[in-house]
């Protein structure tokens, strides 16, 4: 609820909510001094139609960004005396941290975007209209945000525009992801998608400075996205609380210009390396071991991770951060390095690190660049590569099918004879795109030929989340 009113603001705006544990309110009052001059009273004027729509928009954004249960703001117009309430904003959330952040966000945005002006009447009889926001040009404010980097040699408007147009996928919002994300968002990378399935634990906080103590238990991707949007309101941040799998990796890669691998396990690192080759997108990878880090960029035409290690190593072959320990600043250096390499590439700086594995020993500050050459027998990028993700239309009947929504595309008489348990019936003869359920879909037919054919056709139409059950119902 956003409102502009002439009557005094006194009562709280929000009523109780059973799920709410915190309501933060901000009360802005008329002060007796403006830039050293004594103020007698203030006069506010609003352009009401626009003020109401813009105000409502800000509240909706705050609800969305901070996961609020309620948000409200009232701004007073007309003549106000010293001490009168000019604005009251309230944010209701499950926990106080989001309530505080959201309340600040609402007030800042209202001051910045809502067309309300104030006229100060000074004790000496003079008066001045002061822009209280709204009229300020968002573009100028955005320019102000990036001013210092735009001053760099060969950066300017053009460099900033390149970053604004860029789409970066960050996999993992942990020790590497936190610093990497902060610098990407702060630099103005226009579209950031971050994927992480973990929840925040106390043992993460020493190296994941996007999160605070009260965030424990919340999904990393969601919290990270909130913080990044608050940090830089000029960029779009999308969070997915999910793992990257062979099923969703294609969609994620197709929508990205480049990818940061900030994960902590071999299975995902090798999957992202394979995807770099198949979808022809550079992957900037980093890994940590105690006081050391490594960085490696995988890109089409260059060597990949499987040129060195053809087989994905077992998860327990060398220690993880949980087992061998890790220092936050080491993760910070490597994560910042990944963001830096991403920015360099997006800005079109000359190539560096081509096919080189860079090692950083942060006990001695020694770095080594070790050249990796393409392995002609590499199973991912070699001449007879066998690692294939692109064509994974088919799902084996032995796979975990609970991951998918089953759709039986056989005709009703066939389904009646040999039913596919748990499947939704969408016969091919009357099949329409609008009937497709949400999520990852596994198409099923009698022997897996019609379903494969339909999966291929649907993917050509841009629907990547469809798959075909190999062998059909008969294989189940």
């Amino acid at each position, binding site marked *: 609820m956003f409102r502009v009113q002439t009557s005094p603001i006194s009562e709280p705006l929000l009523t109780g909510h059973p799920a709410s544990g915190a309501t933060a309110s901000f009360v802005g009052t008329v002060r007796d001094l403006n830039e050293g001059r004594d103020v007698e009273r203030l006069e506010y004027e609003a352009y009401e139609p626009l003020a109401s729509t813009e105000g409502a928009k800000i509240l909706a954004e705050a609800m969305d960004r901070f996961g609020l249960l309620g948000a409200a703001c009232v701004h007073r117009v007309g003549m106000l005396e010293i001490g009168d309430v000019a604005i009251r904003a309230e944010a209701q959330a499950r926990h106080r941290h989001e309530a505080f952040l959201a309340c600040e966000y609402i007030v800042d945005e209202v001051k910045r975007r809502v067309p309300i002006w104030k006229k100060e009447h000074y004790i000496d009889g003079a008066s001045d209209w002061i822009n209280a926001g709204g009229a300020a040009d968002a573009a100028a404010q955005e320019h102000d945000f990036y001013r210092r980097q735009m001053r760099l040699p060969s950066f300017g408007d053009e460099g900033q525009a390149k970053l604004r147009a860029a789409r970066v996928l960050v996999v993992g919002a942990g020790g590497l*992801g936190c610093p990497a994300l902060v610098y990407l968002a702060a630099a103005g990378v226009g579209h950031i998608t971050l994927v992480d399935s973990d929840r925040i634990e106390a043992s993460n906080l020493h190296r994941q400075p996007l999160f605070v103590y009260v965030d424990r238990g919340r999904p990393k991707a969601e919290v990270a996205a909130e913080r990044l949007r608050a940090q830089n309101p000029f960029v779009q941040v999308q969070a997915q609380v999910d793992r990257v799998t062979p099923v969703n990796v294609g969609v994620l890669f197709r929508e990205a210009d480049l990818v940061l691998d900030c994960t902590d396990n071999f299975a995902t690192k090798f999957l992202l390396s394979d995807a770099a080759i198949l979808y022809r997108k550079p992957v900037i990878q980093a*890994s940590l071991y105690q006081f050391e880090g490594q960085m490696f960029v995988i890109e089409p035409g260059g060597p990949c991770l499987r040129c060195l290690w053809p087989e994905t190593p077992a998860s327990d072959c060398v220690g993880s951060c949980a087992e061998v320990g890790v220092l936050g600043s080491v993760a910070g250096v490597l994560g910042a390095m990944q963001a830096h390499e991403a920015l360099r590439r997006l800005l079109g700086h000359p190539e560096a690190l081509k096919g080189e594995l860079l090692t950083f020993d942060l006990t001695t500050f020694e770095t080594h660049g070790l050249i990796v050459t393409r392995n002609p027998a590499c199973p991912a990028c070699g001449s007879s590569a066998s690692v294939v993700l692109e064509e994974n239309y088919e799902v084996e009947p032995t796979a975990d099918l609970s991951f998918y929504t089953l759709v039986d595309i056989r005709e009703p008489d066939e389904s009646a004879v040999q039913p596919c348990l748990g499947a939704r019936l969408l016969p091919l003869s009357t099949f329409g795109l609008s009937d497709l359920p949400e999520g990852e879909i596994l198409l099923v037919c009698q022997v897996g030929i019609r379903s494969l054919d339909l999966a291929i056709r649907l993917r050509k139409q841009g629907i990547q989340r469809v798959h075909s059950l190999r062998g059909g119902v008969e294989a189940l």
Partner: protein
Amino acid sequence: MPITLTIRYFAALREQRGLSFESISTDAATPADLFRQLVVSHGLTLDPALVRASVNGAFVEMDQALEGGDEVVFIPPVAGG
């Protein structure tokens, strides 16, 4: 005829060897030979199949011939993040 090499260790290997750099005299002919000797002399437990070697700044096959003065780097896969 023994040759003199410098060896660098990374990650889990550094931890197992207890140092990051050493210079040794050896009769090992290849990185694979050298690693086998190190496993015996220092009780390294990392699976040799996971270890990759770089010689003078570039990754090489484990059976490439070594020469006196080479700098050999042993590196296991690393995944922490």
